[in-house]
């Protein structure tokens, strides 16, 4: 239907339109009927016709045939040319004005503007149109930039609109575009906040649609139905469109795919160029990826200081980026290419050749530029191949696609020719020696003329003459020659043209005499060997599988669960048995089969690995009940005081090398908490330290009870922020009031939803469907005791306050976190909370931390509170064993019990003690092996197993270090061989590596003092 309309439109192309002005004078008739003759025609990837002609009429391909074109068509000779289907740019960001701020009909968040259309804006600016055409692109899908829900994209022709011929639209509303963009001045200022806002809006769209259906069935409901909303209406109308995600890095891509799956949308990822770093996870769902040929600049290796800063991961990302497309295709992912990311257009051809050097075939290149984007945009019936009936979008090249010397000659956009380049040399280039006609040739030496493009050099013998005023046309060249060596007159005007194999011309002397000249071509000088970059520097990188995560400590495959016995060690069981000397642990299939005295170990098959650990110690894997490790792009959604809807689980960063460092400190499980800037913060995430898994979701501890961060005191009051606080609450009174209000709201929400659920489906039709509110939904889980509050707290008054609130609403608090004055009100904590999770000995960093004491843990423990110690710091997390030791020092807690502060107790607080947290048979084999008493600073962690997989060992660490050293040396050498040039600097968004890098600072500074 749409296609038919297009056909009619093109017929009158450039002559008429309903809105156009009347013609001033006789009309011009362009038959729009021509043939590209005698070309090599690549119909589609893999199918080539030699000496073929393409017949075009009215903007469409009329026919493709071998041989000459039939009469009637204007013939364009394409001898020596190769013709491809016009390239399609699937993602071209364009500026679209924001919605009128005065209108009331808009979403509360300026990040949500799905009602926008890319066609409302500037379309493709002229410079971009030209640049794209110069590369061979003929059509582009334009999409609004900015925001989380950005509106719809449309596919347009890349030709020049004029008054009478506006930009030609091929298809309106080809896809809905989303991103996980954040703001610096409001909600969402974190990636998890962006995900929450996107999910809530998608839910609201579905709800709005159900409301409309309900009203249609029962018009009486229209009185209470939601107000008309352009944004939600757009969400409804776009629900059938593919949802495209513009992502910053490969982890965002995985997050986007999770959202698409949740809402059953067909997704396409507009990638970062760094997809190869998470290849396996991304390839799994076979979601198509629009890949930018965006590669990092060579890292700066110019000085010793620069080398000190560059990481192996950066070097590897730089080297391997050109293999991205090849790796994705080999993994079975459909890819289309885009030029959207910065700096790429200029170097596009070079990038393509680099990708081809990695093994990409010419057919794969062509597909990524033609058939793939056409398919993703749903226009394979119109674009992508050269076929009868399709749009006459064609790219004429002088040779093989993107070969070094190949140029784009012409592109045809809907049947309209755009000249990209002229044939530069009509045989003029070369070195010419005058054989005949030079003035005074008998007595003086005639000059030798070298023409190279627009450059002319003239030599008489060894002496060079001045040549100026050069005018170079396709077939002629004109200049003025000056110099004593030229003889009597010393100045001549010269004009020359090709004639047969010779160069013919006219020379005019100052006195007006003219001479007819003739020259023959001298043989070209022998080509100089290529002295540019040494071969090694440009050699394509190895195509071998890459480690996960990319960097020094990743592995090619996630270690397998081992069967082994540790024998002779002192076991700190963290269960009723306390410490067992000369113990043994038998692990198989990721579980502890046996842990107890060596003498009681059942017989083990002789081929099982036995680790002699005489004199050593084994503990359960350490559990950190308060961590911010591995949370991408913002630990805290601080745009609002209540953010129960955001989830840390959405933004797990499996690449964070701190995971590895914590494994080296015996840590196997972590409670990832949201920050403390909000009275009600985001949902927390319990992960095992499965460093090296393919997908971040695999780190999550399945079936662990849900959690949520709350915060009391100075931080939610924003008391430690500079400047005036404008956000409620400003006092501890306000914190208490806000919490109570949200619990009241959640109670109402729960009751409404429960009542609705109880209704028969027939009764429900008489009602409007209920809206799902992600924030209140999470809070109803708190009320139902299915979501544990982990509450940042300092002073005794606020601890009491929350205990009272929990009593009023009848739920149990999970843990008080930090809980620096917990020792003052341990009885209340014991009564109202599952436990307390504290620092061992931090104090003094703010007023509410002034009464902190290192005996806090011990006193609470003695008063019956379940106590854990945590890190809240990437650095501290590596030393939780000795933090537990401080409970012995400062409170005389028995050693076996003190170790439980970082094993059993946090496991109980997180509700996972049935699975981990002690050396008990049947539990997950999460273990650490220590050289000495684990509570002592003399102890080094020698090995750490998670689920029976050896994820850290001193031997493997030593091997990794050796590997890092040699890889660094190789890559730095490769970067050096490229010589100077632009080098990537930290944070430069124009560099593919830094554009994909999460530059969020560590929550705590490196020495771990700071803003808790």
């Amino acid at each position: 239907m749409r296609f038919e309309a297009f056909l009619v439109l093109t017929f009158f192309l450039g002559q008429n339109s309903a809105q156009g002005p009347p013609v001033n004078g006789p009309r011009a008739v362009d038959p729009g009927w021509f043939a590209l003759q005698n070309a090599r025609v690549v119909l589609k990837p893999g199918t080539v016709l030699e000496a073929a002609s393409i017949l075009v009429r009215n903007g469409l391909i009329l026919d493709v045939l071998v041989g000459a074109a039939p009469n009637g068509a204007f013939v364009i000779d394409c001898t020596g040319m190769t013709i491809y289907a016009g390239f399609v740019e699937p993602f071209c960001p364009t500026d679209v004005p924001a919605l009128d701020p005065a209108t009331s009909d808009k979403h509360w968040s300026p990040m949500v503007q799905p009602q926008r259309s890319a066609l409302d804006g500037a379309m493709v600016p002229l410079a971009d149109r030209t640049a794209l055409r110069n590369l061979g692109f003929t059509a582009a899908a334009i999409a609004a930039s900015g925001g989380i829900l950005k509106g719809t994209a449309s596919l347009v022709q890349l030709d020049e609109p004029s008054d009478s011929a506006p930009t030609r639209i091929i298809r309106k509303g080809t896809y809905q575009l989303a991103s996980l963009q954040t703001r610096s001045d409001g909600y969402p200022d974190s990636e998890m906040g962006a995900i929450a806002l996107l999910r809530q809006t998608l839910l609201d769209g579905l709800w709005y649609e159900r409301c409309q259906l309900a009203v249609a069935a029962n018009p009486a409901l229209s009185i209470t139905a939601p107000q008309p909303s352009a944004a939600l209406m757009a969400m409804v109308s776009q629900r059938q469109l593919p949802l495209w995600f513009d992502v910053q890095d490969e982890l965002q891509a995985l997050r986007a795919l999770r959202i698409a799956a949740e809402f059953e949308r067909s997704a396409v990822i507009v990638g970062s160029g760094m997809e190869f770093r998470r290849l396996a996870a991304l390839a799994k769902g076979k979601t198509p990826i629009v890949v930018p040929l965006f590669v990092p600049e060579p890292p700066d290796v110019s000085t010793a200081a620069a080398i000190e800063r560059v990481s192996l991961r950066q070097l590897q990302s730089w080297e391997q980026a050109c293999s991205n497309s090849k790796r994705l295709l080999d993994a079975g992912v459909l890819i289309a290419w885009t030029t959207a990311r910065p700096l790429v257009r200029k170097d596009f051809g070079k990038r393509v050749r680099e990708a081809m050097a990695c093994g990409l075939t010419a057919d794969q290149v062509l597909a990524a530029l033609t058939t793939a984007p056409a398919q993703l945009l749903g226009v394979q019936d119109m674009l992508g191949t050269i076929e009868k009936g399709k749009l006459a979008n064609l790219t004429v090249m002088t040779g093989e696609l993107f070969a070094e010397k190949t140029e784009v000659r012409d592109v045809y956009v809907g049947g309209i020719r755009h000249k990209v380049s002229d044939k530069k040399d009509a045989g003029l280039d070369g070195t010419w020696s005058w054989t005949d006609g030079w003035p005074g040739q008998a007595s003086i030496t005639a000059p030798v003329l070298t023409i190279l493009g627009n450059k002319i050099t003239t030599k008489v013998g060894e002496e060079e003459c001045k040549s100026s005023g050069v005018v170079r046309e396709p077939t002629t060249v004109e200049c003025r020659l000056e110099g004593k060596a030229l003889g009597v007159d010393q100045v001549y005007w010269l004009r020359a043209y090709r004639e047969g194999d010779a160069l013919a011309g006219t020379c005019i002397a100052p006195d007006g005499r003219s001479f007819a000249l003739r020259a023959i071509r001298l043989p070209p000088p022998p080509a100089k060997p290529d002295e540019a970059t040494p071969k090694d520097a440009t050699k394509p990188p190895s195509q071998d599988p890459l480690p996960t995560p990319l960097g020094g400590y990743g592995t090619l495959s996630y270690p397998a669960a081992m069967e082994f016995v540790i024998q002779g060690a002192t076991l700190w069981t963290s269960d009723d048995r306390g410490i067992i000397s000369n113990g043994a642990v038998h692990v198989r299939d990721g579980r502890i089969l046996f842990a107890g005295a060596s003498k009681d170990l059942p017989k083990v098959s002789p081929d099982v690995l036995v680790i002699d650990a005489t004199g050593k110690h084994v503990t359960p894997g350490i559990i950190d009940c308060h961590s911010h490790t591995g949370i991408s792009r913002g630990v805290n959604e601080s745009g609002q005081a209540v953010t129960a809807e955001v989830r840390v689980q959405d933004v797990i960063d499996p690449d964070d090398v701190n995971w590895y460092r914590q494994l080296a400190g015996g840590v196997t499980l972590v409670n990832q908490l949201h920050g403390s800037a909000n009275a009600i913060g985001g949902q927390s995430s319990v992960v095992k330290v499965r460093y090296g898994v393919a997908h971040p979701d695999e780190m999550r501890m399945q079936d662990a009870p849900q959690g949520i961060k709350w915060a009391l005191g100075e931080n939610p009051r924003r008391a430690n922020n500079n400047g005036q606080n404008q956000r409620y609450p400003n006092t501890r009174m306000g914190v208490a009031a806000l919490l109570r209000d949200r619990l009241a709201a959640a109670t109402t929400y729960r009751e409404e939803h429960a009542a609705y659920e109880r209704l028969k489906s027939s009764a429900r039709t008489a009602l409007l469907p209920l809206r799902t509110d992600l924030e209140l939904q999470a809070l109803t889980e708190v009320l139902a005791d299915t979501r544990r509050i982990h509450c940042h707290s300092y002073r005794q008054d606020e601890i009491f306050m929350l205990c009272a609130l929990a009593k009023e609403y009848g739920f149990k608090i999970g843990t008080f976190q930090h809980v620096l004055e917990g020792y003052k009100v341990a009885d209340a904590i014991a009564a109202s909370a599952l436990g307390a999770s504290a620092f061992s000995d931090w104090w003094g960093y703010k007023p509410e931390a002034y009464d902190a004491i290192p005996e806090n843990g011990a006193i609470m423990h003695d008063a019956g509170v379940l106590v854990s110690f945590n890190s809240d710091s990437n650095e501290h997390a590596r030393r939780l064993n000795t933090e537990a030791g401080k409970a012995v020092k400062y409170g005389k807690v028995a050693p076996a019990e003190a170790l439980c502060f970082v094993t059993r107790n946090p496991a109980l607080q997180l509700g996972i003690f049935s699975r981990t947290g002690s050396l008990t048979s049947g539990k997950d084999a999460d273990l650490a092996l220590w050289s000495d008493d684990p509570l002592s600073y003399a102890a080094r962690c020698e090995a750490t197993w998670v689920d029976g997989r050896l994820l850290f060992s001193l031997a493997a660490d030593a091997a990794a270090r050796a590997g890092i050293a040699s890889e660094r040396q190789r890559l730095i050498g490769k970067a050096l061989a490229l010589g100077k040039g632009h080098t990537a600097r930290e944070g430069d968004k124009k560099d593919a590596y830094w554009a994909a890098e999460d530059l969020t600072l560590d929550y705590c500074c490196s020495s771990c003092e700071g803003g808790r």
Partner: protein
Amino acid sequence: MFATQARIAWLLLASTGYLFAQDLVPKSSPQANPVVLTNAVLHTMSGSVLVGGTLWFLDGVIRGVLAEGLKPDLPPRSEPIVIDLKGKHVFPGMISAHTTLGLVEISSVRQTVDTDELGEMSPEAFAAVAVNPDSAAIPVARSNGILAAGVFPIGGLMPGRASVMQLDGWTNKDLTVKANAGPIIAWPQQIVIDVSRWPLLRPDTGAENTKKARKSIDDAFTAAQAWLEAHTADPKVPLDIRHEALVQALRGEVPVFLLAEDLEQIESAVLWATGRKLRPVIVGGRAAGQCASLLRDRHVPVIIDGIHRLPQRDDSAYDESFTLPKRLFDQGVMFCIATGMDFSTDRNLPYHAATAAAFGLDREVAMLAVTLRAAEILSVSDRLGSLSVGKDATLFVADGHPFDLPTVIELAFVRGQKVDLRNKQTELAQKYRERYRQMSGR
């Protein structure tokens, strides 16, 4: 021979008083009687460990450090207080070599933060005049055997001068061991400018700024030298207190403390300072292991600013900072170990050293790094750092090694005066334990 009464009166002193927000412990009266510690394991740090040894002191100064069987040569008619340590350990007080202890009470409250004078160059500021002897943080550090500290102002290119303070006394005058331990220079790093965050800066501004900042430091020393020569020749040349603050450093009487972490930063700092005939001390020193021969050959010591730090780069060894002391030791560089510049965590000083010991450093050498080496680097080894005759009786008695967490510091003396080892935190613990005792009706 022993005056029992005197001993009892002296020991009682410790239990008087109450404590709250500040150090409210009355100080013991000046030492009148010789104190003799017998049957001790003396970790002299300057020599061997003396098992069954005797140490005695008078007027705040160590008079005898004796091997088993030797009798102290007490003054005639003195009434010594003799304490039989029954095999317990005596160590010189540990020294937190790089801290803000006494200059800060609560980090987030500006009114209590006295570390950073205005301007890039403020060498006239020195810590000793502003250390609050009643800071609650001092007794907290003291309780774990930290009995002296190098207190450093921070901020700007030349934040001021460090002072060495003992950690007990009535006034900050009492506390001061060395008011001017040397000027501090935050040696500028070669900054990598993030062009996306600072779009108006040209990419090379970082290097230019570094050069400029380094030159301004050099200029300050040149100007001070010129002033010193003029002022010496003609005392009527007016006093310039900024120049005056650098005089001792110019004369080589005190070192200059150069804060530097990166390789280039350390190397250029050392070359600059030795070129000016100054006595550099590197503070920070993360990359010191990579230029060890330079440091060794030019006799430049390093204050390693914290062992419990994260590695520099993603691909650095996880134990990079844990093994730094061992690497420096093996290459002959002199160093001491500090906690990383936080006033509230000085009590963890021995644990930084203990971690270095777990990662390869000899345990004795690690202990030296928080005692004698710190005293030497801060130029106070004439008074502190070892159990040696003639030095201050600033020492503590413990039931084990301070690197071991369960070790209890049982007794401590600062310049011969007994230290009350309680602090705000022990008192709060006691107060609230009483609450639970009452609640349980016991």
